[in-house]
């Protein structure tokens, strides 16, 4: 698998439900970040979790990181129609601090 692969590729839920997306990666990382992208638009930074952290919260977002399994999950609680977007994990590696993006999860939240 490639550095930064999300699953599922697509997720459809109803408003009010929770959405969980997973990300796996292959190499050691400095940190892992989650981004949101509305169709054809820019990338919005959601949350960053450092390699020495295990869990982080921001509003309705909860991110976990398991460095032993090289995986992360993003939980969006009480989803809203406005959460409909693609969500990408990105790992930061090396001294040049570049990001390697995953393939993304397309989340559809219906009323």
């Amino acid at each position, binding site marked *: 698998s490639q550095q930064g692969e999300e699953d599922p590729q697509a997720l459809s839920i109803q408003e009010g439900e929770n959405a969980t997306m997973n990300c796996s990666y292959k190499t050691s990382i400095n940190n892992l970040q989650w981004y949101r992208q509305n169709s054809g*638009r820019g990338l*919005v930074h959601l949350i960053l979790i450092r390699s020495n952290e295990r869990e982080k919260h921001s509003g309705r977002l909860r991110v976990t990181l398991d460095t032993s399994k090289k995986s992360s999950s993003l939980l969006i609680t009480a989803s809203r129609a406005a959460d409909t977007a693609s969500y*990408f994990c990105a790992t930061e590696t090396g001294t040049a601090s570049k990001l390697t993006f995953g393939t993304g999860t397309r989340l559809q939240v219906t009323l």
Partner: protein
Amino acid sequence: EPEVTQTPSHQVTQMGQEVILRCVPISNHLYFYWYRQILGQKVEFLVSFYNNEISEKSEIFDDQFSVERPDGSNFTLKIRSTKLEDSAMYFCASSVGGGGYTFGSGTRLTVV
């Protein structure tokens, strides 16, 4: 909240022409980047820039590409002779280092 500004938002160019994509990073950020996203595909790293020089570049960033920080505010990506496969959304980003990145809203480049 500070933003990364990219211009133009959409550019159409003929194959073989040179294009310059412009970015104004956040003023106190030290690291600057270009990424691209071909339609329907993942975001790919092109190049990182720090202390007025390229710090890392990907295999995509061949001799057709160059970056420049011509003054204290702008950061540009030049594609010398565009090809059809250069059609993509190009994102500029900046960071203070060791933390979150701020991305611009992108320039959609269409090569015809």
